[in-house]
């Protein structure tokens, strides 16, 4: 019993490290086991980085939402819609600047609607963002009647998709930029502090003069906008807007955040943990494909690794 009580608090500490340990473990395992299959090649590592970029970017922002004790299920749909609006803007020949503005604005607006409904109308965020998940993807399907919108704009494709700068994929650069911004925002600014306070004890935060409603609105807008960016990156990478982009991403994103040590109950958040969590899942997926497993086997093994990673981290802590 006492161990139960104290575990409750100790959770915090294991959560802070487990994902790093698990990641290193997974990485070393694949490096050895798949040494012949090219796991450790620069090319493969870059492709892991590219494939996880969108999830990581959305997850960094989601860390804020979850830190306030809320949730956002609409990120995948927002990404899809933003990919569509960006692609349509480019198709209309309005240029890259307009396209970027439109793409980000799409995310911003969805985030703002989510945020207002959660913080002002006080509807549970699960319901709000689930509804928005439907509406967003519905609109993304509907604007072109499910047709994909090709992107032929080379600069756009370079900057938001397949470009390399000094050998580093632009997608990785975007990931790093957002991760750094997220880290600083959460750990070094009053806004981050207020976010954690809002999630830690909303009443107390309110009483300390923190406008918790505004904080919640802001984190939803941030997440919406980052989902918009992720959508633009999907569009750049696949050279098209398509309404199916990002389907199911909400679960991957939330998993990355939780794996990274952020608590669904709010009040605790780790951007670095989130980034590692996201990359770890990407690495496992990559490794399992390289091992030549079936989809079914991949699913089974991924699930087991997730559980083991967390369990193992716990055990090593309580000794």
């Amino acid at each position, binding site marked *: 019993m006492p161990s139960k009580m104290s575990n409750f608090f100790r959770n915090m500490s294991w959560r802070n490290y487990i994902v790093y340990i698990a990641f290193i473990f997974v990485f070393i395992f694949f490096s050895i086991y798949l040494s012949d299959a090219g796991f450790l090649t620069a090319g493969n590592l*870059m492709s892991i980085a590219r494939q996880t970029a969108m999830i990581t970017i959305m997850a960094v922002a989601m860390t804020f939402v979850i830190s306030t004790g809320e949730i956002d299920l609409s990120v995948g749909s927002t990404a899809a819609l933003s990919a569509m609006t960006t692609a349509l803007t480019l198709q209309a020949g309005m240029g890259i600047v307009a396209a970027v503005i439109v793409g980000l604005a799409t995310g911003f607006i969805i985030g703002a609607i989510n945020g207002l409904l959660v913080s002002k109308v006080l509807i549970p965020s699960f319901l709000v963002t689930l509804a928005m998940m439907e509406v967003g993807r519905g609109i993304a399907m509907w604007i072109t009647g499910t047709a994909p919108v090709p992107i032929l704009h080379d600069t756009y494709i370079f900057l938001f998709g397949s470009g390399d700068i000094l050998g580093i994929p632009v997608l990785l650069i975007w990931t790093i930029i957002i991760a750094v911004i997220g880290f600083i925002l959460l750990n070094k600014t009053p806004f981050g502090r207020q976010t954690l306070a809002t999630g830690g004890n909303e009443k107390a935060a309110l009483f300390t003069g923190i406008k918790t409603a505004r904080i919640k609105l802001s984190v939803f807008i941030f997440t919406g906008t980052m989902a918009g960016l992720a959508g633009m990156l999907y569009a750049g990478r696949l050279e098209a807007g398509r309404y199916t982009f990002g389907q199911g991403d909400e679960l991957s994103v939330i998993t990355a955040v939780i794996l990274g040590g952020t608590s669904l109950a709010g009040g605790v958040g780790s951007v670095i943990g989130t980034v590692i969590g996201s990359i770890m899942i990407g690495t496992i997926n990559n490794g399992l494909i390289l091992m030549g497993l079936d989809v*079914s086997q991949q699913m089974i093994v991924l699930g087991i690794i997730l559980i083991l990673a967390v369990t193992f981290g716990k055990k090593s802590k309580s000794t």
Partner: protein
Amino acid sequence: GSGNDSTNGEGGSESGDTNFTGSIKINENISEEVEIKSEGPKGEVATSATSLELTEEEVKEIQEGDYTAAIAMHYAGNDWARAQIEGLEATFEKMGIEVLAVTDGQFSVEKQMADIETILARQPDILVSIPVDPVSSAGAYRQAVQEGVHVVFMDNVPEGFEPGDDYVSVVSADNYGNGVLAAEILAEELGEEGDIGVIYHDADFFVTGQRVEAFEKTIEENYPNINIQARNGIANPEDGESVASAMLTKDSDLDGMFVVWDVPAEGALAAIRSAGQDDMKVTTIDLGTNVAIDIAGEGNIVGLGAQLPYEQGVAEAILAGYSLLGKEAPSYVAVPATRVTRDNLLETWELVYNQEAPSEVKSKME
């Protein structure tokens, strides 16, 4: 779709009561000679869709019936489904048949079953549908049959269903033939030798299964110097990129690749670009906008086997008309597979979609 409908008559396509007069056939540009390689669900030989026709009188008779129809797709979110629905809707409109609802099963058997049950509340005369799974969706279709609905299938038939008794006919896109075409094009481009990878659909799904089977069989039997070195499965279309890039990591010396349909092929293209494998040759099936742009721009995709979904829709509508009239319908009709390479891209686009290729594709051709 309107443009160059292959109908022998004139008429508007305003909504409401149709004032179309004339006979209805599928596009005459489709060759009647192409061999249909898929076999019917009962092993029957295919009847070519080109032989179907509703005469002017028959059309008129149907128009007077004020019939209604429902379309239950397995999935409605791609170019193929959209073209098929357009073909159906346009043809039904000519026949004066109101389409009550188009449902999207989103690849879920239970959703599709619920969809069908629901639209039966509107008592349609005709149901055109592609079952998500022939084994587990029989129940809903049986209910439709019991209620006297004329059922026409696309591509596949629920288990235990008998043509004539339970359903009118099934119109197939000749997926097998498309798999063969994809193999042939890839083999030609590779000079009949080299190592290739196959990205297949890791699911028990009739249509995609046939394609891969045809592709692999063709390569193995006809091209002994081509070696299928890597095989990886995808569960969802979004997996194209991650699977392709892992494949390229492991076997960086692949010369060619076959991807089971166009959407994952787009992801594979992204992976190939990142890996810098510019001379990789890829074939796939279905002429989506983005793969068409890649073909036009002389990218990695060297060609593909295309279905003719619009015409398939037209054929299905015609067969529904047969059934309404009590006219004997062939039990298995196939719309031929079409070989698409850069040379015939613009023409086949029109054949596939019944409209001109979009400007993005055309501009890349120049």
